[in-house]
């Protein structure tokens, strides 16, 4: 794609558009805005493909982080215009997913089902308060201090919870890499 191969972009879109849409939908809770995020994400991926370095992470990480960033930009802009309460995003999805529905690894578009299962298991093993702050940070794009304010917890506690939760998720993935072929 970095060489301007349009078919590579088309293939990336066909493989990942729905997953990008899913993320944007969970962050924004608005189908039209999620549509726009899908287009913006792949357009940005096309324009910045030359800067993508596979040594720094997989394609999925690169694409998902672009999509998250685009969706959070919109969410923050919405908050600035003060209608955050009118059309809230979906922060809380991880809690809902794990407590009410059970964690469901996606049935399509996954680079590694094993990786997702490991993450799902690690996430399920997190205490609810850690899962909650991860949820607010990843899907809500909230800063440490915003999370502290919303949860009425001390800032230090929030930072510790995020650090511990992320360490567990990372260790679970690292463990999987070591076990892998």
């Amino acid at each position, binding site marked *: 794609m970095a060489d301007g191969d*349009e078919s590579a972009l088309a293939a990336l879109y066909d493989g990942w558009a729905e997953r990008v849409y899913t993320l944007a939908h969970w962050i924004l809770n608005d189908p039209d805005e999620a*549509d726009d995020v899908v*287009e913006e994400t792949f357009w940005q991926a096309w324009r910045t493909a030359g800067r993508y370095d596979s040594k720094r992470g997989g394609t999925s990480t690169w694409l998902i982080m672009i999509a998250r960033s685009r969706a959070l930009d919109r969410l923050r802009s919405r908050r600035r215009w003060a209608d955050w309460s009118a059309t809230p995003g979906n922060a809380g999805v991880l809690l809902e997913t794990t407590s009410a529905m059970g964690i469901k*690894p996606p049935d399509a578009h996954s680079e590694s089902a094993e990786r*997702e299962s490991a*993450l799902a298991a690690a996430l399920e093993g997190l205490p609810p308060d850690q899962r909650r702050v991860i949820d607010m*940070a990843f899907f809500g794009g909230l800063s440490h201090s915003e999370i502290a304010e919303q949860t009425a917890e001390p800032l230090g506690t929030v930072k510790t919870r995020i650090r511990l939760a992320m360490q567990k998720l990372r260790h679970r993935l690292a463990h999987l890499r070591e076990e892998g072929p």
Partner: protein
Amino acid sequence: MSQGLRHEEMQELLPAAGLDMLEGAELERLRAHLTACPGCVEQLHQYRDAAAGLALLVPAVRMDPARLAAIRTRLMSRVGAGREMKRPAALGLDRWLGWMVAASLAGVLLVHHSVHRTLDFGWFLAGVLTFVLVGLAVYARKQQRRASELQRRLDGSQATFRRDPTS
């Protein structure tokens, strides 16, 4: 502060950095540390992998196939439009410039020739006509650029605000 202590302190910032939560002084300090610590760079990538993995755990939301296809079409035409705008601009400018310089030189020679042969109005007329043509060409080129710029802006606005007509 010892190097080891600083490294440990920076490692504590990595989980939040993986979620893009750092800002200000903390972010700057970590950035500076990463330039000299490949181990922390590797860990940061692992944290980012873990963060991105969270997006794969939420229940999939199915997209209407018509909307999926409409966005694909818009994206590919946007890519195509960007490519077309780049290519002729680079080649077209060289071609136009070459012709304009050649025509200007011809105009100068013709007018110069007519001045030294005072009764030969044909040469003078040809020279003036050449200058008029060059002027027209420059004007046309300018308008063409304005049209391209407007088209580019229009494409940008449409991409931002256009909604799928089926929605």
